[in-house]
């Protein structure tokens, strides 16, 4: 994670395909007019298109002007927005578009605009990071390599209906497919290769969302005005100004009313809570922290784990290390309590999350940790106060953590080592420059044994890329056939069909396995926190994020 | 050189009476000039000689009211210029006199001109300070002045900067500046010391010419007795802030009276005569903070010193020939009460 904002999960983008839900009725008396000052505390890259942006910060900027085809409800279940769908087999989908939806320039939204978006993403010259979201459409690969002039899997039926055929039936085809249209006439005459650089994307944007972008001061602020023709109803606010502020200014800006709404780092939550004029709003997040172990080395050519590392192979050792950590205290201390324990690599609010009662809770228990270590043969044989390994050799846990200007990183990592030392395990901390950190982890660099990490889950819960033993990003290099099988099964249309519950079952089973085997020590999941000025009304949050901003308003 | 004779009014141009100028050093005032009195007649050249540090410059700066502010001040005495008191005049009043009636040139022609203004500009300034002139008139006048001091390419020099000129030329510019308003008195503080002999000769020649032409009085400060002998009408010999001897030039060189003057003259090698040994004066001029309170200040270096020299302060007095000297070897110099005792 390269932002020094304090948000230190790897959430470099995404999961944001989910937008607030529309049906929600805002409470209070909506008032017409007014300007909302919305702040973001790290610098956006300035790519004002959902089809091209790369950083989550950019999404925060553009969210006011865009509107996706589908949305997610408070259970992260997909539901229609601009378009509805139907499918028989999870391979061929028919999408029906809402009629009468207008682009900001007055054009009417048609399926052509979406097809244009899909073609752009699949274009050989496409410079953004989203090709994977169209890759699964039949014929996309051919189009991408330049072998075809169009994507064969797309069949336009009418202005408001399109049929899309995927290369094969999958459970998550719908979740995965790209859901933002692009206005074809707006982009007329701009080559795909030039889109990212063009002023049309840097200085303006074209969307169907509740607000129109009217002014841009790059890297600094963005001004939106209400889109009176918004298909779900005209917004209540006249204007939204998105400002970039430094994270250290957040409190001051909230307090003196310069900013109405801003994401807040957990450590600041208490202060915001105390403010008279500001409400602290929280909702369950989809990210979690873990401590991973390196069980081997990966060969990226062969796509397999080639070397084994036995240092942490003993499950009792890992369990003892888990029991030694006082996660509640740690979360309270470093996240001011805006978070909670997790016991498996899935945030508890995700729809696939196993019921917590089904999982072991490795509660803080130093005695248990000690006895587990004794059992496993980790004993202090030379009376230096630290345990040696079963062979009687010195045993040091090497913990790696990323470093940035945020000083809490060092202390929270140090605190973890101190927990281990309390049960007699010597531990050393290595802080690694954050820009290099995941590179080293990915390359299984020397010295990386136990590593701290964070992750965000998207709306499609499939964790294969992180856990399958043939995946580069399976950082622990943990190889477990049962796990691989479960993950495959969960996607297998033949096994789970289109039934979400069935799919969830697979994942629950998988979570139990991981909770038992502990290839990672799952530490905590965080809440997302917003500071919202009391004068702002109509804002609702759930696990999928906020509701649509056209419902927001200013009181008084 | 005696043009002043024609003047019926015998009031001297400049009268200095009992001048005491003090510097404050570490909070205490010390007299750098201690009871100096003399007159300068119209059109006369008065030479002031003495070793380094004996107060020549301070005396002249006192007359010009140019003492460093806050450090030096006139403590006592009167300075009368054409009968008008100069001491105690404020800057505004003084500025009307400085550069117009009395002007001054300094030893260092290299640093006395402002390096960032053209020669012409600096000359024009003195004219603007005292007369209402248009730019063009001033410039014409400046060119004229520069030619008058013997600078050949005057119309070009006006636009040049001081660093482009040689030392001799700069001193000429300084002279032009000093005579621009046709002052009645020019104070020249060692104007030729920094110059080579051949150039010194040029400058002395020029000064004498101008003096004659303008009927100007000059106070000529130098430590070169040779220069004094060739240029001055009268000579004042100073030592440690006081005048020890004063008379006209011939008499001084033919029959110096004060032992200090004698030694000074014996110490310089002469071109004309062969000397085996030069006279020497042991020791140095006492610094301001070490001045003896009473007695003759030269006593501790004087070969003819008597016991009383360190207790009795001699006074400057005229003998019959009009030769003034301050030395106890001469009766006239004894303070009255001392004589009585």
């Amino acid at each position, binding site marked *: 994670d390269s932002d020094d904002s304090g948000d230190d999960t790897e959430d470099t983008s995404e999961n944001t395909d989910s937008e607030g839900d529309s049906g929600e009725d805002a409470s209070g008396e909506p008032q017409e007019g007014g300007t909302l000052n919305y702040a973001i505390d790290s610098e956006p890259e300035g790519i004002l298109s959902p089809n091209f942006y790369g950083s989550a910060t950019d999404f925060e900027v553009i969210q006011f002007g865009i509107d996706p085809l589908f949305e997610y409800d408070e259970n992260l279940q997909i539901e229609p927005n601009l378009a509805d769908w139907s499918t028989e087999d999870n391979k061929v989908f028919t999408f029906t578009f809402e009629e009468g939806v207008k682009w900001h320039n007055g054009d009417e939204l048609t399926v052509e605009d979406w097809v244009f978006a899909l073609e752009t993403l699949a274009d050989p010259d496409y410079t953004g990071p989203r090709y994977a979201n169209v890759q699964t459409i039949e014929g996309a690969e051919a189009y991408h390599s330049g072998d075809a002039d169009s994507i064969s899997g797309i069949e336009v039926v009418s202005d408001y209906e399109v049929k899309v055929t995927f290369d094969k039936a999958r459970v998550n085809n719908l979740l995965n497919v790209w859901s933002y249209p692009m206005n074809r006439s707006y982009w007329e005459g701009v080559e795909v290769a030039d889109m990212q650089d063009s002023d049309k994307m840097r200085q303006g944007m074209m969307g169907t969302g509740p607000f129109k972008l009217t002014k841009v001061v790059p890297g600094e602020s963005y001004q939106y005005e209400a889109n009176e023709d918004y298909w779900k109803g005209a917004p209540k606010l006249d204007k939204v100004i998105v400002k970039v502020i430094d*994270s250290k200014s957040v409190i001051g800006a909230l307090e003196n009313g310069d900013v109405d709404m801003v994401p807040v780092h957990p*450590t*600041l939550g208490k202060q915001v809570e105390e403010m008279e004029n500001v409400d602290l709003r929280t909702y369950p997040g989809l990210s979690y922290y873990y401590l991973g172990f390196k069980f081997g080395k990966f060969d990226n050519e062969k796509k397999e784990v080639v070397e084994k590392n036995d240092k942490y192979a003993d499950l009792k050792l890992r369990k003892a290390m888990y029991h030694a950590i006082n996660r509640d205290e740690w979360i309270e201390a470093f996240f001011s309590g805006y978070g909670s324990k997790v016991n498996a690599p899935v945030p508890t609010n995700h729809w696939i999350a196993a019921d917590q009662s089904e999982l072991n809770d490795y509660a803080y228990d130093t005695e248990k940790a000690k006895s587990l270590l004794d059992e496993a043969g980790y004993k202090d044989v030379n009376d230096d106060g630290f345990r040696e390994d079963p062979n009687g050799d010195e045993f040091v846990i090497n913990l790696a953590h990323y470093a940035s200007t945020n000083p809490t990183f060092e202390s929270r990592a*140090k605190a973890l080592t101190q927990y281990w030392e309390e049960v007699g395990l010597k531990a050393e901390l290595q802080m690694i420059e954050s820009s290099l950190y995941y590179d080293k982890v990915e390359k299984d660099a020397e010295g990386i044994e136990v590593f701290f990490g964070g992750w965000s889950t998207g709306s499609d819960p499939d964790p294969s890329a992180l856990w399958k033993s043939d995946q580069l990003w399976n950082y622990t290099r943990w190889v477990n056939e049962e796990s691989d099988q479960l993950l495959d099964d969960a996607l297998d249309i033949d096994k789970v069909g289109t039934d979400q519950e069935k799919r969830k079952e697979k994942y629950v089973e998988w979570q139990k396995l991981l909770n038992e085997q502990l290839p990672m020590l799952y530490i905590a999941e965080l809440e997302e926190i917003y500071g919202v000025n009391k004068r702002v009304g109509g804002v609702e949050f759930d696990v999928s994020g906020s509701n649509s901003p056209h419902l927001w308003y200013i009181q008084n | 050189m005696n043009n002043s004779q024609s003047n019926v009014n015998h009031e001297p141009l400049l009268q200095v009476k009992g001048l005491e100028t003090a510097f404050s050093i570490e909070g205490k005032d010390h007299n750098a000039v201690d009871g100096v009195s003399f007159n300068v007649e119209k059109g006369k050249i008065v030479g002031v000689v003495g070793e380094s*540090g004996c107060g020549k410059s301070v005396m002249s700066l006192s007359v010009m009211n140019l003492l460093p502010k806050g450090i030096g001040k006139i403590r006592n005495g009167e300075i009368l210029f054409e009968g008008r008191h100069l001491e105690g005049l404020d800057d505004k009043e003084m500025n009307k006199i400085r550069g117009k009636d009395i002007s001054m040139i300094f030893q260092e022609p290299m640093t006395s001109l402002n390096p960032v203004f053209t020669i012409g500009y600096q000359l024009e300034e003195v004219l603007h300070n005292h007369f209402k002139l248009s730019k063009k008139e001033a410039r014409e006048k400046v060119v004229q002045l520069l030619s008058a001091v013997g600078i050949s390419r005057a119309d070009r020099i006006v636009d040049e900067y001081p660093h482009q000129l040689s030392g001799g030329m700069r001193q000429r510019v300084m002279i032009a500046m000093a005579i621009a308003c046709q002052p009645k008195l020019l104070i020249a503080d060692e104007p030729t010391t920094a110059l080579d002999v051949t150039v010194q000769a040029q400058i002395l020649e020029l000064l004498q010419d101008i003096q004659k032409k303008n009927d100007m009085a000059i106070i000529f400060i130098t430590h070169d007795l040779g220069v004094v002998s060739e240029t001055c009408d009268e000579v004042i010999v100073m030592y440690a802030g006081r005048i020890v001897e004063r008379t006209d030039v011939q008499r001084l060189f033919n029959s110096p009276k004060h032992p200090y003057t004698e030694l000074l003259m014996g110490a310089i090698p002469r071109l004309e005569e062969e000397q085996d040994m030069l006279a020497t004066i042991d020791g140095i001029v006492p610094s301001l903070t070490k001045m003896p309170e009473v007695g003759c200040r030269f006593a501790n270096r004087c070969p003819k010193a008597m016991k009383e020299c360190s207790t009795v302060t001699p006074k400057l007095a005229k003998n019959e020939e009009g030769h003034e000297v301050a030395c106890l070897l001469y009766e006239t110099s004894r303070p009255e009460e001392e004589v009585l005792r």
Partner: protein
Amino acid sequence: MEVVHNKDSQLQTSKPPKSMSPWAMARRKFMKNKLAMISLIYLLILAVLSLLAPYITTIDISRVNIGEMKLPPSADHWFGTDTSGRDVFVRLLYGGRVSLFVGVSCTIIILALGVLVGAIAGFFGGIVDSMLMRFTDFVLNFPFLVFVIVLNAILFGKVGGVGVLIGVISLLGWGGVARLVRSKILSEKENEYVLAATSIGGRPNKVIMKHLLPNVMTTVIVQATITFAQMIVAESALSYLGFGVPQEVPSWGNMLSASQQPEVLQSMPWIWVPPAIILVLTILAINFIGEGVKDAFNPKSFR
């Protein structure tokens, strides 16, 4: 300036023949300078406290104390504790260790390099001078902070932390001193005593060592104070920006960088104000000492 040294032989017998070297005179003058002496004493106390920090307190400075986080000043924790539950006062002492150490080391290396290059270029002149000065210009053309950041980013993590910083800062910082020493040597070389030293049979190395360097030394010492202050600022600024000494090492800059956390900036002044004040006081003290030294060596004020 004239007549200030007016003791002649007669006077000397009455006074005790006490004579002082210019060093001694400068020392005496310096000691008379109250502000400089206070500054010096402050700096000495600070240095001693910092050096002795491990002996003064037994606290493990790297330990995170979850139970004692963010405590305001109290009898237990004079300056309170920081967001990691570490005692701010103790960290301040340890921070002084690092900051002063970095400052001193950089200053020494910079001066050594600068004097070496400057003296060689200035004394030998000619082609040696041209080459060295071109090289110095080259180094001087790197914007200091920019290159320190880039270099530090490269070397960081490959070699030990504080050492890298010292190396990088020194490597980029000596140019100014070299130029200064060179010009000082050039002008000092013009003095007749250097000619005299050669004329009485002195070899070049002796002339440099015995005659030139001692006279250039005064300038170097004054420069040393300036450099020292600059280096302390450089270290702390870099650490503040996150490109200085590693975060886990307490230094004043690192402590100050805590003020980038809004909660600390606004509601926990005890965490960032003490290092800020100590830092400012230290620089102030060094500057005063520098002024004092300059004054003490200034021949115009030999009284």
